[in-house]
């Protein structure tokens, strides 16, 4: 008798969790039983992907060739280290074998991004006419950020991106780095190719939604694809373009920095050159970092939130400062008072069981929005606690949970199968 070949599993991970070994690695991912799975993904993928609940978090598991798995794992780690919005890699498992000895593909594990939404869920949910535009804006920002750090994506698409609510907009996260490459700097050819492929993929994905009657007929898929190219170019030029002016107009240096701050970027390094007689000045940002507002809020309050949520909270902090007449106090001290007296009580006013529906910062943003709305109706300034109560009853209770929007429940039939 030839002994049955054993699995010789190898886990590569930053903090390997022995409990991971309990998952049925000797079974091809596509055949994992429903009771192990958290959900079935509904996105478009060229590989088998499944979600499992594990140790209080949701993991995405992708079956993929061994070398490609290690490569993607390293790339995701790199992106995570330099704080580019992307999914967090958990590890790679190799050496899988079925009981009959057949080798099974390696898997890449990533942590599911809490409160993130796949684009398909956004289109089938509360489809506001400008949802598509806001998604495209978010993707353009992500692509610019990736290109700024020298990352060539190679397969930009809505499917390879997850979205998180960010005040009235979205923040985009890279999910799939399989085709990506890190370079010192990107050539124009690489950037243009990425942008062109993004356009083609986005239009294709929207055409697919439209074929599945999930998209409003009025939506012009090609126009949305074109919008990405336009938004990307605008942002790239604003961030990296050089401008020249008379040396008397030196205020334009400060104006440029302010403009970049408004776009949510900090200027890490600005190159200023003058011509020989000193009459012309040329400036060009060399290093820009995204997250101007979220960094500022983090510094002031310790709260780590999305860029536009931070912008919104900073505005509210400013009004609080004015209202309490503390403009001359140290900003950090006022910020702590604001967290204690405004932010926390507002979030705490939301019943615990409803908090899974949205992230705290997003809840706060929506309550502020709601306050504005009901104040308009009532023709008076509604205090925040009252607005929070009204928001919970009139809005939040009727919204779906967004803690983990994954796809189909195990056992649930894919609507596409019914056609």
């Amino acid at each position, binding site marked *: 008798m030839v002994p049955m070949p054993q699995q010789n599993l190898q886990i590569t991970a930053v903090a390997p969790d022995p409990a991971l070994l309990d998952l049925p690695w000797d079974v091809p991912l596509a055949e994992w039983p429903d009771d192990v799975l958290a959900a079935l993904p509904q996105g478009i993928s060229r590989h088998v992907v499944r979600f499992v609940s594990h140790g209080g978090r949701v993991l995405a598991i992708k079956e993929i060739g061994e070398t490609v798995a290690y490569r993607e794992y390293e790339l995701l780690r790199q992106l995570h280290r330099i704080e580019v919005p992307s999914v967090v890699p958990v590890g790679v498992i190799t050496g899988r074998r079925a009981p009959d000895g057949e080798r099974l593909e390696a898997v890449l594990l990533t942590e599911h991004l809490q409160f993130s939404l796949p684009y398909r869920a956004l289109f089938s949910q509360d489809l506001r006419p400008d949802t598509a535009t806001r998604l495209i804006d978010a993707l353009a920002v992500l692509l610019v950020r990736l290109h700024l750090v020298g990352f060539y994506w190679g397969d930009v698409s809505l499917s390879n991106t997850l979205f998180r609510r960010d005040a009235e907009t979205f923040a985009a996260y890279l999910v799939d780095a399989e085709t990506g490459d890190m370079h010192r*700097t990107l050539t124009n050819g*690489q950037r243009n190719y990425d942008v*062109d492929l993004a356009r083609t993929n986005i239009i*294709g994905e929207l*055409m697919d939604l439209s074929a*599945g009657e999930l998209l409003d007929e009025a939506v012009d898929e090609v126009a949305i694809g074109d919008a990405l190219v336009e938004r990307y170019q605008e942002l790239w030029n604003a961030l990296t373009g050089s401008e020249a002016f008379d040396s008397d107009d030196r205020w334009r240096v400060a104006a440029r920095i302010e403009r970049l701050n408004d776009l949510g970027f900090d200027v890490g390094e600005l190159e200023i050159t003058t011509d020989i007689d000193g009459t012309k000045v040329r400036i060009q940002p060399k290093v820009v970092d995204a997250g101007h507002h979220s960094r500022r809020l983090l510094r002031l309050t310790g709260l780590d939130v999305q860029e536009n949520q931070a912008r919104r909270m900073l505005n509210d902090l400013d009004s609080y400062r004015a209202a309490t007449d503390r403009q001359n106090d140290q900003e950090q001290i006022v910020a702590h008072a604001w967290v204690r007296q405004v932010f926390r009580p507002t979030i705490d006013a939301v019943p615990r069981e409803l908090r899974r529906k949205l992230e705290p910062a997003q809840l706060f943003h929506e309550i502020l929005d709601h306050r504005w709305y009901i104040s308009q109706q009532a023709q008076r300034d509604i205090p925040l606690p009252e607005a929070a109560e009204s928001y919970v009853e009139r809005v939040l209770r009727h919204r779906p949970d967004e803690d983990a929007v994954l796809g189909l429940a195990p056992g649930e039939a894919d609507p596409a*199968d019914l056609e």
Partner: protein
Amino acid sequence: MATVTFDHATRVYPGTERPAVDQLNLEIEDGEFLVLVGPSGCGKSTSLRMLAGLEDVNGGHIFIGDRDVTDVQPKDRDIAMVFQNYALYPHMSVADNMGFALKIAGTPKAEIRQRVEEAAKILDLVEYLDRKPKALSGGQRQRVAMGRAIVRQPQVFLMDEPLSNLDAKLRVQTRTQIASLQRRLGVTTVYVTHDQTEALTMGDRIAVLNHGVLQQVGTPREMYDRPNNVFVAGFIGSPAMNIGTFDVKDGKVQVGSAEVPLERSIASEISDADGGKVTLGFRPEALDPVAVGTAGSFDVEVNLVEELGSDAFVYGTLKGDTDVNLTAGETNQLIVRIDPRNVPDKGDVIAVAIQAGHSHVFSATTGERLG
């Protein structure tokens, strides 16, 4: 359809001294399937990306047909990167999955349908055109992805390790399909792989690169039979060629107890710098087992026998020559192909002789082929 020409094409990454691709000169014929192959970091992918417009060309030129595309943007080069995007859209029919890029480009509906049908015929997908991708097998899905590139009718197909993320079974299947399909379509194709077996089985010609420098270009047969230098000799072929540097005495190479005579023309090319040595290569299948003590044979002590059914290979140690540095690919053992029905045991000593005319002689200093 078109030729592709690399004319002294060079890529130097900012901040590095050695070019990633150094003065590449390569002419690819119209309709040819050319494989760029070499170890990781050899410059093969960089060369392909230079052709695609994804890497700047810091010196020299690249032509597609007669057109100098050195500074042309990727999307204006009339090339297709095959398999870049092969996620299929579940709600669209197979035909729409293949033709959607044409729709975006504003191609008239009737023409899209015609081009899609033509491609489907070649790809054996005609009966699936109006079905959803769900109905397709893994291999058929791969073909739809190829169909996306075919309907665009580009001048050149580019493929960068397209099989690397497929499982082993699908890899072999797709390899054959790509090769036969390329021949039917006759579209000039440049294909990158690190796998020399893939290169040998797919390419009309193979270009081997190492450290950014083109080592040799030729048909699979030429590369196998007449490698230009030690690198190509060691890289092409599986299992790899046995290569070692040996003393030459009286026009004969001293391999263990064997004396392998050198042709006069080859012996005359040995320079003073070579110090009376040559590098000799002989493939595992160029060794004949003979009776121990036969003139012209050398002894090999068996360390391991690898049995593969149709073939068997001995991994062993050359007896009587302890200071010679002999390698075969990754291993520093000597490999001999033997009759799978008559295999020796571990620890046995067998005698083998190199078949006449089947040794490769290289300069011990430059590694270039002699003769």
